[in-house]
């Protein structure tokens, strides 16, 4: 069902994997161009990171809302946005990806996921 979203994001230079994940950590749909990436595993971890970020936001900013969560490591980035009430959309990228472009595509496709769920 989300092949259009996954295809759109995988077309962006530097994006190696895309996943639509329920907030409780279940992989709804995903695909990686790199076979070493276990999308299902990443999905579960991403949901945890997103949940923790919400808690931090609530504690620090007194608001349980997060626009975007970015994890940067020397080997790549994981960027996650909310996609409707019950899901998040996440991408795994190379370290030198064009972050601005990825963010635009993520936001746009998160809206599509939200309207499709």
């Amino acid at each position, binding site marked *: *069902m*989300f*092949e*259009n979203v996954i*295809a*759109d994001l*995988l077309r962006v230079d530097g994006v190696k994997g895309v996943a639509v994940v329920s907030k409780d950590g279940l992989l709804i749909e995903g*695909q990686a161009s790199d076979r070493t990436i276990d999308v299902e595993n990443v999905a579960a971890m991403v949901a945890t990171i997103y949940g923790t970020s919400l808690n931090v936001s609530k504690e620090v900013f007194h608001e349980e809302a997060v626009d975007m969560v970015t994890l940067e490591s020397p080997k790549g980035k994981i960027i996650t946005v909310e996609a409707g009430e019950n899901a998040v959309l996440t991408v795994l990228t190379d370290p030198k990806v064009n972050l601005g472009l990825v963010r635009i595509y993520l936001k746009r496709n998160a809206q599509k996921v939200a309207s*499709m769920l």
Partner: protein
Amino acid sequence: MLPGKYVDVMTDFSDPLELAGKVREGYLKLAWKSESGLKLGYVLVKKGVIVGSLVEEILGNSSISGDEAFREIFDAVKRSLIGAVEIYEADVESILESHPRMYVTFVGVPSKSGRDLDSFLALLRVYRGGVEIQDGSKAWEIYVENGRVKAARAIKGSDYRGDDAIKDILRETGHLLTDGMYTVGDPHEFSPEDTVRRTDLLREGLELVKEKRKVEKGF
């Protein structure tokens, strides 16, 4: 990736290609997973008519255009692999000017079943598989591949096979245009006697009928 303004994403449809009728000028964007990987297809539409097509292989970095691309999209539609369709507004003329290979040679919107001559002719151009044609008292089964009818036989009302079955269909064109319908489906196994030699005959015959109707309407 084609230029255009995102309008909507649809998930509630019986045939994704019917959404072409909702597009004034733009394209449908659809993606699906096939045996060879994730594919992204574009169907260019002007005034509800399909005018161009492109399919890109996402991880393989290859693409196909025109009728060949649309054949692949139609195959994915037939196998119900399309879960969502995005609609974009775009300047179709300028897209086709810069990518002329995307032009398709058929007119109309092929569908999995119908009564319309344009849809049937479009189906003959792009479909690969079996089609049952019936006009109430008679019925035939044909096998279409890459725009050509490879096999045919009557299954009700007569026992013609091969080229004779095609001629039988053309003889009944009058009935077919008023009471006929077609449905795609998995054909029964065809035998060597069902082989059609004049593989363009049905399409050419029906295109002539279409032209004749156009001329008659003009008078």
